């Protein structure tokens, strides 16, 4: 059983607060991803779990055991570093065996474990090589292998894929996911790449400026971001934020963005009534725009007109950079759309999927 629990963990470097009162509860065998922009405190959090940093305050539990004062080696964890941190003077075999030798395991068992891990990762043929004779992807595998042989309860990954090229990164992503299924261990994975987070995680933890912004399964977070930051961070291209005003007319609520006016669905009403007449931020994901030609539900209440500034075809979909009044918007539309740059287009907003945020607290209203 390897739950990892952080209770009100804070880490300060002199005056700088890197981790600010974070509480996290990671279930056994969960694939938890800590994600956030650089400098958000995610790596520090991971290093605190590993025991490489001493926390300023708060408690860390691994497998229900308080580990604040337990050295890294006794925390039953293994870590994969961004730069792999392979021992340059040891061959692959010894890189993987090092931790086991230190634990004084019998030689046969070390052999067996290394072989097993090498097979899992497909690096049996590289065991005699030194790290500098390996390609980036191979080094990555060795680094993972070094963690696997230890059979720890918790794996910690610190941006392990960021030094790989795009194609390899996609392949390794899938492999690590497979590995998780196979190892049946808790994984805590740090990345700044939200796609990695979305694709791999069973739960993601979004951090910003040392604080936990939101935690939850990836789709849940995607669909219901807790605040403006999460909404903007998760999803690519990012959500469009339109500063606007909430109007009430004939017992209906409208978003007034000066250049357009749309009517909000009625299930929004209970949460937004207090914002009547106030400034709000209206959030629409690019994929929630539709070309009116191919979207029959378009009405006057959910359609806006905009000018096309740039077109980026992605294949079956096309990104349109639009200008509506003074608002720049990005819309992901059907590839059948045949408009050109400079023309005007009518797009329909899928209003039930839109979000409203409080511009002051940045919290989600609905």
């Amino acid at each position, binding site marked *: 059983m390897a739950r990892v629990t952080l209770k009100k963990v804070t880490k300060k470097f002199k005056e700088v607060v890197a981790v600010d009162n974070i509480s996290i509860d990671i279930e056994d065998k969960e694939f938890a991803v800590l994600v956030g922009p650089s400098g958000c405190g995610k790596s520090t959090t991971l*290093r605190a779990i*590993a*025991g*490489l940093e001493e926390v300023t305050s708060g408690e860390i539990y691994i497998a229900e055991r308080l580990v604040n004062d337990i*050295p*890294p*080696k006794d925390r039953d*964890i*293994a*870590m994969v*570093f*961004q*730069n*792999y*941190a*392979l*021992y*340059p*003077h040891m061959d692959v075999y010894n890189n993987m065996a*090092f*931790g086991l030798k*230190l*634990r004084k395991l019998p030689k046969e068992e070390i052999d067996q474990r290394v072989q097993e891990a090498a097979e899992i990762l497909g690096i049996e043929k590289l065991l005699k090589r*030194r*790290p*500098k*004779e*390996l390609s*980036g992807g191979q*080094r990555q595998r060795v680094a993972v292998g*070094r963690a696997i042989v*230890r059979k720890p309860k918790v794996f910690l990954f610190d941006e392990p894929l960021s*030094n*790989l090229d795009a194609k390899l990164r996609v392949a390794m992503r899938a492999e690590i996911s497979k590995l998780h299924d196979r190892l049946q261990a808790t994984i805590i994975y740090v990345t700044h790449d939200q796609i990695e987070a979305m694709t791999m995680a069973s739960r993601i933890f979004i951090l910003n400026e040392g604080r936990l912004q939101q935690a939850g399964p990836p789709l849940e977070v995607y669909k219901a971001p807790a605040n403006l930051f999460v909404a903007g961070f998760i999803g690519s291209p990012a959500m469009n934020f339109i500063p606007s005003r909430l109007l009430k007319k004939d017992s209906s609520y409208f978003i007034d963005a000066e250049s357009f006016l749309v009517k909000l669905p009625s299930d929004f009403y209970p949460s937004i009534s207090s914002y009547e007449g106030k400034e709000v931020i209206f959030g629409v994901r690019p994929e929630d725009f539709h070309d009116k030609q191919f979207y029959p539900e378009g009405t006057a209440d959910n359609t806006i007109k905009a000018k096309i500034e740039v077109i980026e075809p992605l294949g079956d979909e096309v990104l349109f950079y639009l200008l509506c009044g003074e608002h720049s918007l990005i819309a992901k539309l059907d590839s059948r759309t045949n408009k050109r740059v400079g023309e005007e287009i009518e797009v329909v907003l899928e209003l039930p999927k839109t979000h409203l945020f409080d511009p002051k607290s940045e919290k989600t209203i609905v």
Partner: protein
Amino acid sequence: MIAKQNRFLLSLPLHIFIILVALIWIFPTAGLLITSFRPASEVASSGWWTVFANPFDFTQFTLSNYKDVITNIGIGRAFVNTLIITIPACIIPIIIASFAAYAFAWMEFWGRRFFFILFVGLLVVPLQMTLIPILRIFNQLGLSGSFLGIWLAHAGYGLPLVIYLMYNFVSGLPSEIFESATIDGATTFQIFKSIVLPLSVPALASITIFQFIWVWNDLLVALVYLGGTPDVAPLTVRISALVGSYGQNWELLTAAAFVSMLLPLIIFLSLQRYFVRGILAGSIKG
């Protein structure tokens, strides 16, 4: 692509520069080497390059200088004495300094910066000033005239530079390796032994050479702490005793200089292959 020939032309000034520097450097030594094969009377009356007037006239050369040096200084015993002094006097400070450099580079402790600065500052202490107070203590401890005493003395005098050079190297190792080893379960000592020392081989090689040469060429420390009787005297002491009191016998000195240079040069040449590039390349680069 630049043609091969063109590239050679581009680097031609480079080669000329290097060869020129090498020639300037080797010239005085060459003079010394040739002088060591010439009889005393010739040395005083004509330049060493005059041998090139008839380079195949071997009568102008003599091996007697070398014969004198080797027989007179009792080279076997002196050589053994030198090794007995030099080897521990190299190993002890390098071990002590590696420990200290590791702590200074990678551990947090109270007074770390102060002590580091103090250690480096001690580089400037003229060792002549330390002889009397230390010899006094040595006498009380019964260490004067013992090999242990001179090992420790060389260790003490060599430490500041060795710590300084080691620190410079060890502090440049990537921190992830240390973290990774910590998580792998290594204690600070295991990290030192299995990671720091093996990775410091290039630095250790060059520092060993410097310390070796310094101890090997030392005269004063040996004379003061060990005395100059033949049963303990190292090569330097014996060689300097070979040269007359008024500084004559240059031809012997030149031969002796080459005899005593031999081992340091062999050490240098054999350790040179450890000054290799990029041991770390695989760990810190993606």
